[in-house]
């Protein structure tokens, strides 16, 4: 049996199949559908320093092979998260990676200090790439801001740090390099692509927030391209996410250079999928004569020039 363990700098996971933030609630909602112990990790919904009501509905709309969302980081704030959700999450037989967002470096520092009290957390993922909130949350469009936020967080928190980056930039590589330079243990690629849906008969946007983030199988080619670009040029482990809904999709991301993957939108329409993929991965690796996941990561062969 192939060894499914993966190590991303200071973060070690029993297998490379995680569930993505914003598509798994706070885990208790999915308990009926999935065996948490089979997952490589759970990343609950983004938490901010203060409660946020989120954006007005409609918040999601299905598009061809995908969906747009403009949830707007609807959450009850870090204190409520620690008080009401964290005990439950940490009681699960699965590594928990908290996901946080702040408006500025100072807010990220506050979040870091609060989460530093919970060494049982496997890591913290910084959502510096949500397209649905205004006011500087989209740090990951700028390498200097990315570096500032990641290093601020690292200095205030001993947990492994993952930076979740946006595809809505000209060159993700320089942002990923900035995250690496600031000491991130890994980068997650990619958050949603900014998009829009229109009801032309009413002459109105469909989403309450006008624009939203595109996810689902429709964005997989973009995610693969960015994972490959970053993994082949920046010395930092990459966690791939974007449209994964089958074992073939998982393997495509691994071959492109991802050390681990996240299942996102597919959990909405196939709540048990991530655990099933984790179960099936070792069989395929055995068939490929891979002793460990790392034997297949980044094995893409490019055409000769």
């Amino acid at each position, binding site marked *: 049996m192939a060894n499914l363990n993966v190590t991303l700098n200071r973060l070690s996971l029993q297998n490379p199949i995680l569930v993505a933030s*914003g*598509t*798994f*609630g706070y885990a*208790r*909602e*999915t*308990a*009926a*559908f999935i065996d948490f112990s089979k997952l490589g990790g759970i990343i609950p*919904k983004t938490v901010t320093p203060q409660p946020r*009501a*989120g954006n007005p*509905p*409609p*918040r*999601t709309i*299905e598009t*061809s*092979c*995908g*969906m747009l*969302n403009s*949830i707007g980081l*609807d959450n009850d704030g870090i204190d409520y998260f620690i008080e*009401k959700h964290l005990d*439950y999450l940490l009681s699960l037989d699965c590594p928990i990676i908290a996901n946080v967002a702040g408006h500025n470096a100072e807010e990220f520092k506050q979040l870091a200090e609060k989460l530093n009290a919970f060494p049982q957390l496997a890591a913290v993922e910084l959502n510096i790439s949500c397209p649905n909130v205004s006011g500087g949350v989209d740090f990951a469009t700028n390498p200097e801001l990315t570096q500032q936020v990641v290093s601020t967080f690292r200095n205030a928190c001993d947990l492994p740090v993952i930076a979740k980056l946006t595809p809505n930039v000209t060159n993700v590589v320089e942002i990923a390099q900035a995250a690496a330079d600031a000491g991130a243990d890994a980068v997650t690629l990619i958050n949603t692509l900014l998009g829009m849906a229109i009801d032309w008969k009413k002459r109105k946007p469909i989403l309450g927030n006008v624009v939203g983030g595109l996810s*689902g*199988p429709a964005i997989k080619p973009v995610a693969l391209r960015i994972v490959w670009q970053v993994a082949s040029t920046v010395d930092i482990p990459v966690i791939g996410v974007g449209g994964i*809904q089958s074992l073939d999709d998982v393997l495509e991301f691994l071959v492109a250079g991802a050390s681990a993957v996240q299942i996102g939108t597919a*959990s*909405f*329409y*196939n*709540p*048990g999928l991530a655990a099933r993929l984790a179960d099936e991965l070792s069989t395929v690796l055995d068939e490929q004569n891979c002793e460990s996941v790392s034997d297949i990561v980044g094995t893409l062969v490019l055409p000769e020039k």
Partner: protein
Amino acid sequence: MTECHGLAGLVPTAVQTTGRVVEHEPMARDTMRLRIECPEIARQILPGQFFMVRDPRVTDPMLGRPFALLDTYDGPTGEPIGVEFGYIVVGKMTELMTTWRVGDECEIWGPLGNGFPVPKDFENLALVAGGIGQTPFLAVAKEALGHRSYGDPLRQLSNFPQSVSLSYGARSAEYLAGLNLFEIDGLDLEISTDDGSAGHRGFVTELLAARIAGESPPDAIYCCGPEPMMAAVARLAQEAGISCWLSLETPMACGFGICFSCVTRVRLDDGSWDYRRTCVEGPVFPAETLVL
């Protein structure tokens, strides 16, 4: 219903399973009734709960769609082995569903949501439905009239309402769906259509208003339909001091609380409001708690 972390509609025993189409028949214009074999869901589902359904063969459409329980049906041993629901053809998913044939498989997860209150504390229960919003009320009426039981273990009512009525409004006669199904012993059925092609000409709220002004007014109202109609029903109930519950038809992406799409504005104790997920805190809410 077991409450879980204050989320009345979070169902710890929900399952994701493969269902099989057993019957697929027209109910009215653009309206179909599907019967899906799925014993794990049928055994436990309660009136007013729902499930998500999708076609596992395609990713366009990709997401499941929520459908309210119309009724369960029994297998040869007398145990519930499947669910029925009605749907109106309005978009890509429901158009695809019209091509499903007997024997086809579908993905189904549920039961989901809180369902209507157990109808054991009311004398005169009024069910008010607009459009496809009538579908949850078949099982509600059957249970409230003592014709059928639901849930695992089977929910036995300690007390039954003296009367159960259904006021059902649609655009026109051709859209009235499943009237034959609602020919239930003891159910007082009234119809309205916008164009007068069947029953009362006008809105279903006018039927309810007359009932409230009548000799034995309802002491509880369960309502499902378009939001403006539900808001009007909620106003009538509030003016008359009658307890009223609304089942929301908010669009959902997942149905079980992880996407935060299906939010509705719920009043808080301090007079403000917050967005709450219809799927895991509803879909049935006391009318006075909603900001409609």
